[in-house]
Structure formats: C-alpha cells, structure tokens
C-alpha cells in the first residue's frame, strides 16, 4: 500500500481448526480499500478456508475479522455486505439469468421491478443482455462465469470474494477474463479478494499477493516484490521457475556473502538477516537472469556443460549440468535473435549472472 488508504478487511490472528486439523494458524492480513488482493497457494494451504471465513460460511475458531472497522466474524453470511463468486458458480438452476442477477437485490428489499432493472444494467456490464431470459444451463461455461460475476456485483458489495472463478475455463478465455476482471475491479472500485493456485494468474492481476502454505502466510507483497525477493524456499519454488542450489556460506564481509556449492563452484551474493557464516542454506537464481557464454563475462559465473536445449516458443531453455546438485536451467528470450547464441549439447560453457540475481533464502 503506497499511500494511506482505509483498510477494507482486517484479519487479526485468525485460527481455524477442523477437529484435530489446524487449517489456519494465526493468520493476520490487512486488505486495503479498492485493492485487488490475491490469496495464492497450493490446494490445502487454507486459502479457500480463509475466504469462506470472510464470507461467513465457516466460523472462526479464534481471532477477529473486521470489515471497515466493524467486527463481522459472528455475523451470518446474509448480514455481511460481501458477495462471492463461487468456483462452481452456484447459479440457481430454476431461475432465469435475469432473476439470478436480481436475486441479491430483491433480498436486500428492493422491489421486483427495481431489482430487474438493476440486474439488466449489470448484464449489460458483462455483455450478456441478450441472454437475460435463458436458464443458466443454456449458457456456456464462460457465460455462466459472467452471470456469477454479475450476480455477485449487482448488490454493490463492499468487498467481492472470488474463489478460483476462472479455473474451469480454457486458457484463452481465462486470459481474457483475467483482464476483464481487473478492468471491472478498477471501474467499480470494489475491493476484490481473489483465491487461486495459479501463480501466473496471481501475478497478472493482483495489486498485492499473500502466498500461503500449510495454513500460514509465507510472504505478502506486490507481484514484483514476491517474484524478485522471495523470502523463503517455498515462495521461491512456488512462484515462477527457479534454480535452487544448496550452498554453504563461507564468509560474510564487506556486505557480501561468499558461498560454495561443491565441485569447486563459488559465488558471492547479498547477505540476508538470519543466515550466518557456516550455514547450509538454499540459493535461488531465476533462469531468465542468467546468460551463457564461452568465456566468463561477469564476476559471478559458473562452469557447466550443456545437456539439452528446449524450444518453448517465446524462449529457449538450456539445461546444464554443473557437475554438482540438480540440473540447472538458463532461459534466453527468443526475441533477442541477433545476440542469442545457442550452444550445442556437450559443449562446456560459462553461466553468467549479474549482481543481485542470486538470492539466499531463509530456511
């Protein structure tokens, strides 16, 4: 949050237990007004449970949830000015599209005519006006998704929750819906809390991301922050593609940590708090921050042998054997044709990295 804006949802030390199983261990997150906030994590990390607690479908074992300074943890879902777009859409099959979208408005006490009028406007926003009188079962998956979105937006909630809403769509449709969601969020000014296990989706859409695992928030920050400065091994591994190397820290002096990774390889990188001399830790280097050459070109370089080149359209990934640790990946953009030098398998090369590309990870 760059400037001081009001907090829309304040989650304070929230704990959730199902019998013996602890789904959430003292999670605290503040989500700003008008923010596109994403809960990202693998399945079973507790992100959906947290979302369902904000909606009111699960009660809170301990802790508090505030909506604009009002404690809501004890309110039933129908008393919370928060709406949800469900993963399976949960459209009412016996009602028409228009009735579905107008349902929340009607339940808020608006007359049927007024509810229909506003529902009609909502359908225009998601470009489904011509389907107003169809039943949900007569629509395609993408259209149903838009109806679910319109239905949740129609009552003008203060916060909109989205539970993996795009997971059932094919890739092309998902990409266009991602942009559309972002667009609608900006246009309506409603705070969005988005749950996904797809890191690319999270990076594309979010103002801020909370990476979750095992019932805890592992890291909270902007997409760029999380990608470039992963705090721990889980985040580095889960977000994007990375090379994880096991290293020991030999010495820390002049603001540089010198590490060796066996096989005669040595690297220096920025030290981090919590990692001392003698520690065996992991080091993360993103494949796109590296480049190959026949002679060392940077201060930091490793020797390796090319195993394989993989062409993936936009990029070429070269897999290398460093003689120690797992295989190492280097990615070069395919747009850089003039300068791109592809080495043949079996060739010995130098892997160069700029300062700051390698990061030490806590744990």
């Amino acid at each position: 949050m760059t400037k001081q804006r009001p907090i829309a949802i304040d989650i304070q030390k929230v704990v959730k237990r199902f019998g013996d199983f602890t789904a959430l261990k003292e999670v605290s997150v503040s989500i700003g007004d008008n923010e596109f906030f994403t809960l990202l994590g693998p399945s079973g990390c507790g992100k959906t449970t947290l979302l369902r607690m904000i909606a009111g479908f699960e009660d809170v074992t301990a802790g508090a949830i505030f909506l604009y300074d009002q404690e809501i943890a004890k309110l039933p879902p129908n008393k919370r000015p928060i709406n949800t777009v469900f993963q399976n859409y949960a459209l009412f099959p016996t009602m028409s599209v228009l009735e579905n979208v107008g349902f929340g408005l009607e339940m808020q006490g608006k007359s049927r005519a007024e509810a229909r009028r506003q529902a009609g406007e909502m359908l225009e926003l998601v470009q489904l006006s011509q389907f107003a009188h169809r039943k949900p079962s007569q629509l395609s998956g993408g259209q149903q998704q838009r109806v679910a979105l319109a239905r949740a937006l129609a009552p003008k909630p203060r916060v909109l929750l989205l539970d993996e809403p795009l997971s059932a769509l094919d890739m092309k449709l998902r990409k266009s819906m991602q942009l559309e969601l972002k667009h609608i969020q900006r246009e309506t000014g409603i705070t969005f809390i988005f749950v996904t296990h797809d890191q690319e989706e999270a990076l594309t859409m979010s103002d801020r991301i909370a990476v979750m695992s095992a019932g805890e928030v592992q890291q909270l920050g902007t997409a760029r922050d999380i990608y470039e400065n992963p705090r721990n091994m889980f985040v580095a591994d889960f977000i994007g593609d990375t090379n994880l190397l096991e290293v020991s820290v030999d010495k820390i002096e002049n603001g540089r940590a010198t590490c060796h990774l066996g096989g005669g390889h040595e690297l220096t990188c920025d030290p981090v708090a919590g990692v001392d001399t003698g520690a065996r830790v992991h080091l993360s280097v993103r494949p796109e921050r590296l480049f190959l050459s026949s002679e060392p070109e940077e201060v930091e370089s490793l020797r390796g042998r090319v195993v394989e080149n993989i062409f993936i359209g936009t990029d070429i990934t070269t897999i290398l054997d460093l003689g120690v640790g797992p295989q190492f990946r280097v990615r070069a953009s395919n747009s850089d044709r003039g300068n791109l030098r592809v080495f043949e398998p079996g060739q010995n090369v130098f892997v160069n990295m700029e300062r700051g590309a390698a990061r030490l990870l806590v744990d």
Partner: protein
Amino acid sequence: MAGGAASGGNATSEAYAPARGWLLLPTWVVLGIVVLAPIVLMLIYSFLTKEFRGGVIWEFSVDAYDQFFFDRGLFGDDAPTIQWAYIQIFWRSIWQATLATIFCLLIGFPTAYFIATRPANQRTIWVFLITIPYWVNLLIRTVSMRFILRDQGPLNDLLQWTGIVAEPLTIINTNLGVQIGLFYSYLPFMVLPLYAAIERYNFSLSEAASDLYAPRHKILTRIVLPAVKPGLIAGCILVFVPSLGSFLAPDLLGGARNFMIGSLIDEQFRGSAGNWPFGAAASMILLTLVLLVLMVLARQQARLEKGAG
C-alpha cells in the same frame, strides 16, 4: 425422474431399426398383462348384471353406475335424486388422503432433509431405519396400531400418566384414527423420493443464496423447494394415490362409520353380500378421479421442466 429418457443413446439409429420391434415386445406384454387387461376387465364387469352370492351374469347393464349416483334409480317411476351416501364416502376419502399427504409432507420433508445432510456413510443407515417397520405386513402393523391407539392402550396410558388428559382419548373408530393409520402407512413413500431429491441438491446453492442476503426461510422457499420439486410431486402422488384407495386403515381404525372408497370396493368382492359390477364401477370412478389428479400434476411438472430447459 426429470426427463431421464431424453437424449443419451440414439435409439432411432438405423442399426437398431430391425430389432426395435421385438426388443420392445416384453415391455408391451408385461404392460398389457399387468396394466391394460385388469382395467379392461374391470370396465367390462362394471357394465354387467350382478349375480347374487357374488359373480356376474353376462348381460349389459348400467345398474352399477345408476346405484352409485342415484337414489330410486334412473329407470324407476319416480324422479331420480342424487344418491349422496357413496359420493360422501368418496369425498371423505379425498380429504382424508389430502390430509395424509399434507401431514406426510410436513413430517417427511424435515426427515428427508435431515437424512440427506448426514455424512454420506450414515445416510444408508438412516434410510434403512426408515424402512425397517415396512418389512412387516401392513395388516399386522395396522392391527398393532389399533392396540396402541385404543382406549386402554399404551398411548392413552402414557397421556393419562403424564397428566396431559384426564379421560382416555377415543381415537379408534374416528376420522383421527383413520388419519393416523394413513399417515403411518405411507410416510416412507414421501420420505424416500424427497430424500433422493434433496441428496442430489447442490448445497452450495443455499450458500450462494445466503451470500446474497437471503434469510433462512427465503432460502427454503426460493431455492431449495423449487430445486427438489420433482421429488416433492413424486412423494405427494405416492402418498395420495394409495391413501385414496386404502381399506386397511379405515376398516381397522375407522370402523363402519368412517368408511372410505377402498373399504366400499373391498366389501363388494367379499362373500355373498358382494356386488361385483358395483365394486367394478366404484373402482372405475376412483380410477378416473386419480387419473384426473395425476394429469393436473403431470402437466404442472411438464411446464416446470420446459422452463428449466
């Protein structure tokens, strides 16, 4: 039951064309023997002349229908007047069956909802428990009910012992007795189809409704009931129709003054007092009535399904 036969395999495919006729033959034979033949037989008998000591004389007559609807008879000297006695029995049967359906619905719906919302591995046990009493013959259960409900029976003992009533309640040989008997006999026919419908209900719809500001009663009336309507209609038909023609509960718990059509028909085919054509005619009238009710319900369901696409 909602349009299950629609779509699926292409039954009109050319490959099946020659076989289609004889593959359907068993169905037609069974339907003919168990459905069509008895009804046709009944229809014929209702237009024959009665033989004393039961049986019929093969001679056309409308006496049976005449006796049912008119006093003095269409073919007598005096002006015919409507015979109310039998119409009253019909009327009593209809409202007893309607009441039984309503009570079964009021008790059956929460029961079915309860079972359908148990964890999946417990549901079978609950359904099993519901059906256990029905392993015993209906006659024996109805007789037992008579023992439970009679003036010096366990129910009255309990009511008096707890001080709810001072004098024993007379339940046997009243409309209430018949009603309890009908309700008890046909309750599972309401619970089971409702359970099947509620079990298939997508409970995230209730969550979505709650999320959209619906209080609990609105979730029930606007979301749950419309979604389980096919099961609801099936349950109502399965309770109403057999209640209407029931004769064990009215006979054993209602006595002579609380006759229903079932008992009336039953009596016509018993011993020497019977009148076969009259029994057949009453059956035909009952059948017509039931078909009318079913047609109305079927038309409503068809409209519902057309709406649901």
